[in-house]
């Protein structure tokens, strides 16, 4: 499993500047042995899909704290899949009300991690679900 490094794109879609969580997760994933690329702030879904393709990642992990997730998360899934990346694992996190999660999962977000999640849970989820 770990012979070839798992490549993860940590992405901040939308306009919110709260990237404490994204950066902490990025670093925890890196410390867990993944190769991590962080997009920085204010990425459009198009930019994220393009970066995922260019970097040939296995996982796209997005963080939103502004409430724009119902619009932006599904958009990213759609564009990543449209690029032919059928197996890429796409996960999300941030301030996301429980009630929004079923719709996000239906749209193709494999898992949603809410505040208080230990980074170890995210590492385990990726290891279990990534397709390489």
């Amino acid at each position, binding site marked *: 499993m770990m012979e070839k490094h798992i490549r993860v794109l940590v992405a901040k879609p*939308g*306009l*919110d*500047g*709260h*990237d*404490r969580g994204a*950066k*902490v997760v*990025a*670093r*925890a994933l*890196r410390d867990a042995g993944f190769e*991590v690329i*962080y997009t*920085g*702030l*204010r990425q*459009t879904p198009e930019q994220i899909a393009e970066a995922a393709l260019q970097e040939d990642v296995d996982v796209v992990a997005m963080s939103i704290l*502004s*409430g*724009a997730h*119902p*619009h*932006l998360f599904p958009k990213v899934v759609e564009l990543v899949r449209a690029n032919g990346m059928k197996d890429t694992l796409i996960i999300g996190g941030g*301030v996301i*009300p*429980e*009630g929004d999660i079923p719709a996000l999962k239906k749209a193709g977000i494999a898992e949603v991690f*809410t*505040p*208080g999640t*230990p*980074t*170890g849970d995210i590492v385990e989820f990726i290891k279990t679900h990534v397709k390489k």
Partner: protein
Amino acid sequence: MSTEKEKIQAELDAYNASVEKATAKFPERAHLPEQRLYTPLDIKDTDYADDISFPGVYPYTRGVQPTMYRGRFWTMRMYAGFSTAEESNKRYRYLIESGASGLSCAFDLPTQIGYDSDDPISEGEVGKVGVAIDSLADMEVLFDKIDLGKVSTSMTINAPASVLLAMYIAVGEKQGVSPDQLKGTIQNDILKEYSARGTYIFPPRPSMRLITNIFEYCSKNVPKWNTISISGYHIREAGSTASQEIAFTISDGIAYVEAAIKAGLDVDAFAGRLSFFWNAHNNLLEEVAKFRASRRIWAKVMKERFHAKKEKSMKLRFHTQTAGSMLTAQQPNNNIVRVALQTAAAVMGGTQSLHTNSRDEALALPTEESVMVALRTQQIVAYESGLADVIDPLAGSYYVEAMTNKIEAEAWDYIKKIDEIGGAVSAIEQGYIQKEIQDSAYKWQMDVESGAKTIVGVNKFQVEEKPVEGLLRVDASVGEKQKGKLAAMKAKRDNDAVKKALADLEAACDDTNENLMPHILNAVRVYATLGEICGVMRKVFGEYEAHTNL
């Protein structure tokens, strides 16, 4: 005297020896700092007259006013805003009727980054984290039936602060309130946007020009306005420690003062309108010490470094908000207790105004009911707890005084380090400040995950919970509504006047000697939109690009 110290030292040594073994039986508490007890020995070098002194007296350790809350309470200022101007106006009037003494406007992200609601980049974000403001027309609705001559308004707006301030001035004009009567604050602190909060637009140089333009304009025309709220709040939220919070923020403050002096302003003409914004975090006594240390440092900076003459220039006045990042999504009612303790810290630390967070904010924007509990928390602390009855009640505590000294010393080390790098702007450009904050944030998270730090309900005392019901939901149609309003406004306004005002603004942007405020005000008055005005400035100034190193 020295014999008394020797006696205390001997007794302390005996005490430490006697409890060493006993405390070793409690490994769960072993991660705490070594020192368990504070005595007069910890503050033996502290001089009452020089270091602590009286409230309203340099170095203002005990507070900036002589009377503090024996005059009047702090301003209970609840940060609010969401959806459309109509919806937010309702919430503001509700807060005023409930006894809030000042307004605090939250703007949505497109507004904070200078985009109109109909910009493609705004999609999904309109009205989400604050109110959407596209033009003066929205601002008129936002303050409908609110007398700008009476209320004081704080606006959390940074990169486009000049534009929102101009809109506020223009609403005042329409209400018959002259600019010199307006009271309030714009956050206007761009440096912490680069290092911690993320809603920057332009590169540092033109951003600093906009800020000094505002200082100058307001000192002449809007004298009661606080022209900047130099913010540690977001630096702390991004993960910094208490000492880093005040050090990085005061370094930002030094950069603003230097820029204004370089632009030819007299320090005492603008420094009295500078204000600060601190976080009230979980560790109550450390926070009180932090607030006290921050006042002492700023007083020294202004007196010794910038040779301010007026006392007002040396006084660090601050707003406080309880720590959003310390709210838990788990067992959200526990947050009410956290906020109460944080409120106690802010009050014992001598804050000038306070926003208390609501229990449900780790999940969504707060409901009216939970905002009420948060406001009541302040009122209970003010009227019932007794904490506001005595000025700086923790002064003289061996621990709090020693902690005040320690935080001050740690902050000075950082400030010196940043000076060596070439000041806050260079330190941000080199990513130094961002890296320090990131490292602290990561350490915090690892401490929580290892159990070294306990967060009740998160890594200890967890329970199975049902999803919280009745969260506030921003109407998904707000984006469409806002687009409709914007189109109707554009069809109605004098578009030739808009074109002319924008061309005039562009020319002014090109001339670095020109103060941009009057030009922005002219554009706002003819209903040029925020996106149009910021678009002109983007064209001339360019945009900031962040480089993030993990």
